[in-house]
């Protein structure tokens, strides 16, 4: 399968502080990849860098190759801003964590849905309206006509996130970046939105980069998982493999710290001790070693682990993964 | 910080010139001469006016009245505005609601026109102008102090003082006033700028301190008629007003930021 997007050694810094280190990953067409990690691990920074929305204060190195709808492949980091704009909202679309704050309060929903279309694919007003209605139906908004002429403050949080998804889908992007799209929503609404995304993926065949800290969601929606810690991918692989046999102690810790409502036997929640380190003062060696139960003095605190394949398609960054398995 | 420094330099320069005006020029500001409307030369740097008086000397001496009026008016405005603002901000509720309405109304009214009307009745002495401009500018001071007092009232340390049994008589002078002092200082400088701005406009319109005392606005008015003969007659006092207002404005706006 063709990779829609592939990053090589993506490194992002703000001033002297590096928050993302040599990140390399790829997403194939139609694939749902989850980027998982605690808050502060650099997930959202990665998402914004793919969109080219980090702002001037950020320095981004490495490469981000995108294969566009028109067949060409380009490195987003070397494109001029003008060509980047033709890609944003068109080949790449993003939905955000805060649906309540992500719509412009002074425009009607209809105008906001058709805005990206009008920029990337100019068409007559009537056609734009038809398209907006179709999009609202595709995200299962109850009363699409009424919604078109509504203002954002008249919609609920769940409805607003559906509108955001409709906006993101308007130009049929190759890749949808969903940055914690359900975190701010109620649990029932959350399930509906996830269902909707899964269904839309099946219908459109777009790839999805799903950013979350919620492992339950990952298992439901993702084909593949990237686990991020302190700006690095520490474990990656097919969802079943990573969940079935986590190799990196951090991933295993994340799993144990997750509340399981429907477990057969009561399971203790074991939070990982400590906090995500400040990117300005990363511990030497493996960044996770101060919080790791398996860390070995003289080894984990000096050598930086490189990704190693522990099974086909399953990579891990841990100096001791073989010993821990054994 | 640089803004503030620029403002201070301008203010110091103007104050210095006004204070030592007799030492800086060879002529008294009211001393008439035989050369009328002479263009600038080595003897009279800004030339002479329609009565043969040295323009430079009049500009330098004119700074005294302007500075006194500006600082005096700002002082009056603070004496009225600070307590009013503190009261409204600290009491909150109905008192605040009414006080805010009154302040907004006063700010919406044209201060210059108000000052014109009052000056026409009371007569344009320095003291009158100070009182009038202070009266016209207090609502701005009060509104700002109110906003700050309102914020600080809700702050945790005031909450803590209140929980410890302190009442308004203690809290307002001990906790709120010191915290709004910076804002008041900044607003003081801005009010000086506004007062000099307005008082010079008043005297330009013919309601300044009475002649023959030198007075920037009035000098510009006369200078306007002789703009093609001795431009410095109008331009020099204009520049003096501009520099002085700019200095206080920079000081005030720089202190706030």
């Amino acid at each position: 399968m063709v990779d829609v997007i592939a990053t090589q050694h993506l490194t992002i810094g703000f001033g002297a502080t590096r928050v993302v280190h040599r990140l390399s990953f790829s997403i194939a067409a139609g694939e749902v990849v989850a980027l998982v990690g605690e808050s502060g691990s650099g997930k959202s920074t990665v998402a914004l860098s793919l969109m080219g929305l980090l702002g001037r204060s950020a320095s981004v190195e490495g490469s981000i190759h995108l294969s566009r709808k028109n067949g060409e492949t380009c490195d987003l980091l070397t494109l001029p801003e003008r060509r980047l704009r033709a890609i944003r909202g068109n080949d790449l679309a993003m939905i955000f964590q805060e649906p309540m704050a992500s719509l412009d309060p002074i425009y009607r929903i209809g105008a906001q849905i058709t805005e990206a279309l009008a920029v990337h694919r100019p068409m007559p007003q009537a056609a734009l309206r038809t398209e907006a209605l179709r999009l609202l139906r595709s995200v299962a908004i109850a009363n699409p006509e009424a919604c078109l002429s509504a203002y954002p403050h008249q919609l609920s949080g769940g409805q607003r996130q559906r509108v955001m998804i409709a906006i993101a889908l308007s130009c049929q992007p190759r890749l949808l970046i969903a940055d914690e799209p359900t975190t701010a929503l109620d649990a029932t609404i959350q399930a509906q939105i996830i269902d909707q995304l899964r269904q839309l993926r099946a219908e459109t065949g777009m790839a999805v980069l799903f950013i979350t800290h919620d492992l339950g969601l990952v298992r439901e929606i993702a084909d593949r998982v990237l686990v991020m810690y302190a700006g690095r991918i520490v474990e990656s692989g097919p969802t079943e493999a990573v969940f079935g046999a986590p190799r990196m102690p951090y991933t295993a810790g994340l799993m144990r710290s997750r509340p399981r409502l429907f477990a057969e036997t009561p399971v203790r929640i074991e939070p990982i001790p400590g906090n995500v380190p400040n990117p300005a003062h990363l511990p030497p060696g493996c960044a996770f070693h101060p919080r790791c139960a398996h860390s070995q003095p003289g080894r984990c605190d000096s050598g930086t682990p490189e990704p190693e394949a522990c099974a086909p398609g399953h990579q891990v960054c841990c100096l001791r993964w073989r010993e821990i398995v054994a | 910080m640089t803004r503030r420094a620029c403002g201070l330099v301008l203010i110091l320069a103007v104050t210095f010139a006004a204070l030592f005006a007799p030492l800086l020029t060879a002529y008294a500001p009211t001393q008439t001469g035989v050369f009328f409307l002479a263009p600038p030369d080595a003897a009279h740097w800004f030339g002479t006016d329609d009565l043969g008086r040295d323009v430079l000397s009049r500009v330098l001496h004119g700074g005294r009245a302007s500075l006194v009026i500006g600082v005096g008016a700002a002082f009056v405005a603070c004496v009225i505005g600070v307590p009013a603002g503190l009261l409204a901000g600290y009491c909150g509720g109905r008192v605040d609601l009414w006080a805010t309405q009154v302040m907004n109304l006063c700010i919406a009214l044209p201060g210059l026109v108000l000052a014109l009307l009052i000056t026409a009745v009371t007569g344009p002495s320095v003291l009158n102008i100070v009182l009038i401009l202070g009266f016209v500018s207090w609502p701005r001071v009060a509104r700002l102090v109110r906003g700050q007092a309102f914020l600080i009232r809700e702050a945790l340390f005031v909450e803590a003082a209140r929980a410890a049994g302190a009442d308004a008589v203690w809290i307002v002078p001990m906790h709120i006033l010191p915290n709004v002092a910076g804002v008041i200082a900044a607003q003081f400088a801005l009010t000086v700028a506004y007062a000099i701005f307005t008082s010079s406009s008043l005297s330009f319109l013919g309601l300044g301190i009475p002649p023959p005392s030198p007075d920037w606005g009035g000098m510009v008015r006369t200078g306007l008629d002789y703009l093609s003969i001795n431009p410095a007659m109008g331009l020099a006092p204009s520049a003096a007003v501009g520099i002085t207002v700019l200095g206080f404005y920079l000081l005030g706006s720089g202190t706030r930021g």
Partner: protein
Amino acid sequence: MLAILARRLVWAIPGGIVITALLFASLAGLIGSPAALMLGRDATAQSIAELNARLGFDRPIATQYLDWMGHALRGDLGRSYVTHQSVVEAVLPRLPVTLEIGLLALVLATIAAIVLNSLTGARALIRPLATLLAVIGITLPNFVLGLGLIYLLCVTLEWLPSVGWSAWSNGVPDHATHILLPVLTLSAYYYGSLTLVFRAEYDAVARRLFIRAVKAKGLSDQQVSWRHTMPNALLPVITTIGLSMGQLVGGAVVTESLFSIPGIGSLLVDSILSRDYPVVLAIGMIVVFSVVIANAAADALYAAANPQVRIR
């Protein structure tokens, strides 16, 4: 929009009556007696009392106010003490002149403040320029700025005719060259204060999350600014436009006086200097009413432009 404006104006009427009554009372109170204003500071107490009695100023303030209002509503603002001309006839022909200059300055200042601060290209160049202009506008009194412009453009460069007024009837070019400097002068202060308020709002809106979401759609920076940041920042500024109306009136008085323009501002100054109480009172009332109406209009505009208020 019109319905809202009508409703606000209906609400503004009692407010206007209260304010004019206050103005009437405070004018009378401040002045003590109109006769004192008319006779000057050297008048004796007796002559003041006599004149007050003759003109009916010894009656209670409320009676005088109702009397004045009653006449005013019938189109009678009294007669000038100086020219003995009817006040309406003195004021009415001057009103359009002031309105024209005031409105042009208002429009110019508003557009300049909004456009200069919403441009995204060459921002490193335009922003400092916009700030410089704003500081000039705020710190230079109208007569200083006007004098500088006259000296530069009329005396030195001789690009424009000198001060004075030329009516529309003298032809558009002549009218335009005479109105240019007054409008520029008058707009400066307004531009400055508007710039400070608008820019603070603009920068606050630019930091909001939906701006990032709009950028993600692929809009250019300038499109984001025109369509989203600027309109959202404009909303709270509308109220400011109404509130600083008073400043504009003060500026108009000085500007008209400087350029010898026959508007109501210069008439007000002349009447104050010649102690022409009926004219002063009439213009004062007109000014207060326009400030009240302008504020009501700004409120209505705000309500009409803000969907969160409109729907309720």
